[in-house]
């Protein structure tokens, strides 16, 4: 079953790679504005973007060749695991992404960890006492956090924790402490939803016949929860982490820019502005494949902890 699942994900990865490559290529081609001028603006800054600079870029990069040929080149290079060079910096895309992916992964992992630490206990507490104070308060908090844009959440956190308390640095990426505020910004938004999912899952488990039976047969509350509750709550919560990944990847783009964090979201935004096609294709590809990989891992983890499947 695992072999089949992995094979399925691999096929999905290949399809994602193809779709990302072709789509980003077509979409960037459809964007308004002259590509040579855009790249020149990205390279030389707006004081120096002139027709002469744009012509030099056009000649250097061979931008006049047919689009189909350029796409063919990209696919052929991809087969040889070569993502090409950035049109702006001239450096290999792989090197730039390797630098940025590490930063983004650190940010994302810390965010997932923090959101679990925040959302899971809160959701369980709320689910055990539905309608209670924790439940109502966390509903209000979750709604508010989810309704406010991440950008604003980030600024409020900076104001409160960094400027007000002086406990953490505002922005940058020199030390581990620099990563906490951006990760917390992402984590709060994720925990807002996962705490509600956990709460509903807890409630469903607590009200289920098997849980009632466990208690009827005389298991103490604590043992019943640990043995029959927690694992059953884990399945929908973990499955929901897959959905959260979309939010996480979206959020990374915003949060990295706000906190001057050199990640892949930041790179993608700049590449789109500068019309740096290999860089756009490379970052989109890596983001797409990461998504497939993480979804695959979530599936495997769900299968591993689901008590129903283990018995089947």
């Amino acid at each position, binding site marked *: 079953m695992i072999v089949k699942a992995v094979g399925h994900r691999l096929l999905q990865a290949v399809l994602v790679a193809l779709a990302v490559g072709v789509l980003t290529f077509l979409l960037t081609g459809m964007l308004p504005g002259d590509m040579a001028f855009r790249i020149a603006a990205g*390279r*030389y800054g707006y004081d120096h*973007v*002139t027709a002469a600079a744009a012509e030099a870029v056009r000649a250097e990069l061979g931008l006049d060749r047919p689009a189909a040929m350029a796409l063919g080149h990209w696919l052929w290079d991809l087969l040889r695991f070569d993502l090409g060079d950035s049109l702006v910096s001239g450096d290999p895309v792989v090197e730039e992404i390797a630098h940025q992916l590490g930063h983004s992964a650190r940010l994302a992992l810390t965010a997932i960890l*923090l959101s679990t630490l925040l959302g899971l206990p809160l959701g369980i507490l709320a689910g055990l006492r539905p309608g209670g104070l924790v439940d109502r308060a966390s509903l209000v908090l979750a709604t508010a956090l989810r309704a406010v844009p991440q950008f604003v959440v980030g600024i409020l956190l*900076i104001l409160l924790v*960094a400027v007000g308390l002086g*406990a953490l640095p505002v922005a940058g990426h020199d030390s581990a402490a620099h990563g906490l505020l951006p990760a917390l910004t992402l984590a709060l938004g994720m925990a807002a939803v996962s705490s509600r999912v956990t709460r509903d899952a807890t409630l469903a488990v607590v009200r289920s016949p098997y849980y009632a039976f466990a208690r009827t047969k005389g298991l103490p509350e604590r043992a019943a929860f640990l043995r029959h509750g927690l694992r059953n709550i884990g399945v929908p919560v973990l499955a929901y982490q897959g959905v959260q990944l979309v939010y996480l990847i979206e959020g990374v783009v915003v949060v990295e820019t706000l*906190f*001057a964090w050199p990640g892949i979201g930041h790179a993608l935004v700049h590449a789109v502005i500068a019309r740096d096609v290999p860089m756009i294709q490379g970052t989109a590809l890596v983001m797409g494949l990461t998504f497939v990989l993480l979804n695959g891992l979530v599936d495997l983890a769900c299968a591993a902890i689901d008590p129903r499947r283990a018995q089947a």
Partner: protein
Amino acid sequence: MLGALGIGAIAAFALAPSAASALDRTLSIVAPWEIGSTDPSKSGYVFTRLEVAETLLDADDSGQPRPALAASWTVSDDRLTWRFRLRDGVRFHDGTPMTAEAAAASLRHALGKPGPLKQAPVAAIDADGGEIVIRLSEPFGPLPATLAHNSTLILAPAAYAENGQVTQVIGTGPYRIERLEPPQRLVAARFPDYWGAKPAVERIGFLAAGRGETRALMAESGDADIVFTLDPASQKRLRGNRKLQVHAVPIPRTVALKVNAGHPFLQDVRAREALSLTIDRAGIAAAILRTPDAAAGQLLPPSLPEWHVAGLPPLGRDIARASALLAELGWTKGADGILERGGQPFRLTLRTFPDRPELPLIATAIQDQARAAGIDLRVSIGNSSDVPAGHRDGTLELALMARNFALIPDPLATLLEDFGPEGGDWGAMGWTEPRMAAVLAELRDATDPARRAELRRQAVTLLQAGLPVIPVARYQQTAAVSKRVEGFTIDPFERSYRISSLRWAP
């Protein structure tokens, strides 16, 4: 939840001392501009500003060339051969001596890439003894200023790959790069073998933070010692902070409307004058820039005394006069308050871009102000490259830009680019003024100071009369500086952050 926050806070406190150790006191600088590349033609400004690499010449506060890596220079009688004598005893950061051959090779690399040097009439660059010899195909007065531009940085031979790509920045400046992490981070330490005075600050860290809010908050929290480019709202708040000093200096960058003078609506100078008369410069300066004296009455600022004509009547607002001029041109007000002529409404697209955050705001203010005279502007916010691209394909009608007239410290070079006979990507469009071409051509090579002053006055007066670009406001360079730092000044030519002249407060 509190537990998790607690863990975070403990981690933060555990790590904080190592980040702010007093042993290696690092001066932290934050600015919006990213380090896109190691190549001087692309990101040279970062390495000049952080004093990592240097040019042959420098500029003083009034823009006059002064010696840097070149100790002196001469020009031949036919004004075609320039000789630059290099300073002795200069070493690159890799320990190799700066020879004339190495410096000439750097300049030839710059000549092969887009930039001001490529646009100068350079025929050959050679090394001759301890001198660099630059031969021109025609006289070009602003050559010394061109050699102060950051795309002409002098780097060691080992900085270049065989194909001419710059692989690492090995300069001659007082600071040597320790860590370069494009696009955002650079750490540099004092270079012990620097030829000039030894700076007081040992280490510097540079961070590019694109968001204005982030930069302001970094200044406020004390995370950064120097923060450049503050948005007007933050400036006001930071001025109230006792730990900070806020500096603002007008720089030779002018916010102006680039006008397509070939457009049927704007061909007549009276139409351009009318458009100029609708603009409330004082209002824009006070309300948007929060600097009431930033209104621009003429194209070049008083900070460039040679190029600012004192007696020239300043551009201002007069809706009645604007309406009268437009009536002369046959425009009549329609039912919706918009002018019409021959069934066509007076409707134009004003393009601008957000690289300088004030531009979109000023554009919408101008849109509102022009409407008072019946001119309907549509603001289109795009990429900076849309302006030169629109110039070239003829589709540009109006553009709001912030043009730096001292990219090269001598504004003549930029004026030649913008107002030459063909116009320029960031200058005149569809504007033919033979007198302007003649004045600039003579200025390019005139040597008599009195004659040069007269020619400059004529050039500025012609621009004020013809309005191929309509000045709106002066740009300010701003910085918030921690009181831990002393001796801070802003370079009006944006060439250097002047870190080497800073010291820590006792």
